[in-house]
């Protein structure tokens, strides 16, 4: 159903497996059906494919040799971290090698003076903060999947978390990368300083979804742990008021450490699941975390409470202690699985919108929900406009997955329409490839392909993902109408 592309290797699978076994130990080359099965999908399980072979190298030299081999015989390569991605980015290629970085789990160095940590790509996000904790430092970007996802995957997706508005995304928190290009060359991108000579390849690699090179080492920046963090919960009888409150907090000159919103359905699901004490009658709640020095937090709490009340909050509650703070966050962090309990399946979307468009977008989403007869729960990184609508469906009902995907696509197109984007942090992968045709015109897509070719002219790294071919867009019949021009005029209509 979701086949990425049709690249075929110029080597038989037996010969390929044989050659791979020359590079890495036998037990690090998997090719039996039952060994391949665990790799058939990432966090987006609707998309599955069995790779030809899975390799688990342990050294940079081995990765170099594997890529050189694949390059020589035109074998597609898909890199994989923990496989928690939500857009099918690590979906295997049926004719290709799945390159797992799972054995690259060493923390190479932590330098508290320079406030950096140099780690292998398979190190888990949370493990970095845990290792830095002894120095009073931490790694700021905190995707909800942080106990499982790898830093290599985080760089490849430019992952965010609940603290992005204040502390930035992955791209703002890394200093150096080592990558291996498809022809087996090791490149060190950026150095020991805060910037580097030449083009910003560090930014270009971040969020490149395994399309430009394989990341084999990451140096991340660390921050001092805030002296204190405190969370305020505010309840609203109207989502629009909650949205306005977010703007009012920022207008007051405060950038909270975290600023999250949940709608009624998400509140109820989370409350049933973790009993965080959320107000069930509210239409929306905001969780606003203030962090920094003791004095700063005290000062800002008073101010934010005031702003929330003036914005019409029906209840404003400050966590009295760390335990209560943890409980309030637990509800938010468990929102996905909590919503998952309401329905056999759920589908998580990831658009970003200018915050002021929230009322219109929520309204349009409610209309679509009625039209498709599928309920939606909303979890929202409110501070930075990143929406995570969760569509509830049942994959066992014939046609319901397809309806859900179509509904999801409509939501993303809506985000583009109001000036936003189809993905804030989960990436395009396989999933949003059609919506790329909505967000970008053919010239822009061609420019992306040219960037790809600058690194990987044969298109062997993660083929068919992230950037659609113009043909695909024509088939999809995307509605990117740019200043009245017909989209893809050079292509025949289907």
């Amino acid at each position, binding site marked *: 159903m979701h086949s990425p592309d049709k690249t075929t290797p110029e080597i038989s699978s037996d010969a390929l497996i044989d050659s791979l076994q020359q590079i890495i130990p036998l037990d690090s080359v998997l090719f039996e059906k039952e060994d391949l099965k665990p790799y058939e999908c990432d966090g987006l399980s609707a998309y599955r494919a069995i790779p030809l072979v899975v390799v688990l190298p342990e050294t940079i030299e081995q990765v170099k040799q594997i890529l050189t081999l694949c390059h020589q015989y035109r074998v597609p390569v898909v890199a994989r971290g923990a496989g928690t991605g939500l857009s099918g980015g690590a979906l295997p290629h049926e004719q290709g090698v799945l390159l797992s970085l799972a054995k690259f789990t060493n923390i190479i160095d932590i330098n508290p003076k320079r406030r950096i940590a140099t780690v292998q790509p398979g190190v888990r996000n949370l493990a970095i903060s845990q290792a830095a904790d002894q*120095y009073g430092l931490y790694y700021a970007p905190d995707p909800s999947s942080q106990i499982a996802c790898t830093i290599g995957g985080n760089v490849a997706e430019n992952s965010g978390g609940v603290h992005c508005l204040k502390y930035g995304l992955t791209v703002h928190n890394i200093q150096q990368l080592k990558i291996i290009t498809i022809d087996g060359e090791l490149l060190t991108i950026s150095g*020991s*300083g805060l910037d580097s000579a*030449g083009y910003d390849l560090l930014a270009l690699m971040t969020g490149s979804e395994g399309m430009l090179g394989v990341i084999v080492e990451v140096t991340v920046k660390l921050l001092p742990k805030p002296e204190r963090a405190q969370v305020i919960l505010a309840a609203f009888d109207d989502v629009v008021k909650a949205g306005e409150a977010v703007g009012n907090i920022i207008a007051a000159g405060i950038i909270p450490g975290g600023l999250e919103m949940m709608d009624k359905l998400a509140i109820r699901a989370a409350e049933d699941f973790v009993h965080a004490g959320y107000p069930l009658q509210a239409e929306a709640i905001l969780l606003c975390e203030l962090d*920094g020095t003791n004095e700063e937090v005290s000062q800002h709490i008073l101010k934010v409470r005031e702003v929330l009340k003036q914005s019409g909050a029906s209840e404003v509650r400050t966590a009295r202690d760390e335990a209560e703070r943890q409980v309030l966050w637990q509800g938010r962090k468990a929102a996905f699985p909590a919503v998952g309990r309401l329905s056999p399946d759920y589908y998580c979307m990831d658009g970003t919108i200018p915050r002021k468009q929230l009322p219109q977008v929520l309204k349009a989403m409610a209309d679509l929900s009625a039209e498709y007869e599928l309920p939606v729960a909303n979890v929202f990184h409110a501070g930075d406009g990143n929406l995570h609508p969760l569509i509830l469906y049942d994959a066992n009902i014939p046609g319901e997955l397809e309806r859900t995907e179509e509904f999801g696509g409509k939501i993303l197109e809506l985000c583009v329409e109001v000036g936003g984007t189809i993905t804030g942090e989960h990436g395009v992968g396989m999933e949003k490839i059609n919506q790329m045709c909505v967000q970008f015109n053919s010239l822009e897509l061609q*420019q992306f392909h040219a*960037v790809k070719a600058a690194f990987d002219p044969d298109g062997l790294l993660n083929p068919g993902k992230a950037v659609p071919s113009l043909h695909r867009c024509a088939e999809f019949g995307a509605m990117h109408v740019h200043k009245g021009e017909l989209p893809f005029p050079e292509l025949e209509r289907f």
Partner: protein
Amino acid sequence: MNSDISQQLQQQVQHAFERKAALSIFAGNSKAFYGRSDARAASAEILDVSGHRGVLNYEPTELVITARAGTPLREIEKLLEENGQMLPFEPPAFSDNATIGGTIACNLSGPRRAYTGAARDFLLGCKIINGKGEILSFGGEVMKNVAGYDVSRLMAGAMGTLGILLEVSLKVLPVAEMESTQLFQCTAAEALDRMHAWSQTPLPLSASSYHDSTLRVRLSGATEAVKAAVDTISGETVTAAEQYWQQLREQRLDFFTEEKPLWRISLASDTVSLGLPADYNEDNCLYEWGGALRWLKSDAPAETIQYAVAELDGHATLFRHDGDNNVFQPLTPGLMRIHQNLKQAFDPENILNPGKLYPEL
């Protein structure tokens, strides 16, 4: 004074593309000293972006501003100030004519950079004309956007060699409620030690500098937080500190007036010595960014400085000079190959500011 001359600019690029004629991109001309002066540039046609100006969208509560590239930096800073906000990377202007496009193209950032981020960190999106004369948009006006490669940030620091900036969207932040600058007399080694110790604790630091045996540290944030931090780090509170940081940012301190080439050296903050031969007077340094940026006045040959800095995994830029063309740190062959491929991808006829960054580009 809003005007949209994108059509005209596009036609000029298309025309140059057809004729394979080099274009030299200008706007405010405030940073003409910066970068290489290539023979190809001398005979190039001028592409003047300064007429393409105007703020297109500014919503303080969305923390975003979008402006045409030729909009004067001063105009943008004034508008933000009126709304209690700022460009968090404190860009140097070097002249009243500086434009926002030139600022982003050079990716220059001021004293706050080490604590809040560089120009590239605040760039959310841009509209460009590539070397084929195509108008393209990347990124957008939202904080989080991972659709497609991050072409916007690639433009920051590319100095026009990959595309002409038409519009940029930037994240802005509220100005701090209070600022205070503390001063200490100490040696360079002591200054580095202090800066490192402080930056490992959650103090509201926003700038630091060391020269002439004097360490200055700026604290910015909520009033109570700054007051408490002043108590913690002590030192002498500087009056008229704002003026000092302004002069540092614009390179108007005495240090910068000396008649020698000025080097900008970016490296690990705890570097003690650059390892230059003794007669090159490496003590003649001004430190910024907690030690991660060093300004050096030196007659040493470019090769000597760049070799020494490469050994430290840093990079050295000949910031102000009289004719030496080894301006930017040489790239490894592997990185140069990628740079050339990218140049080819955006500007296949090599007409946009040829040779401005490297002779090969």
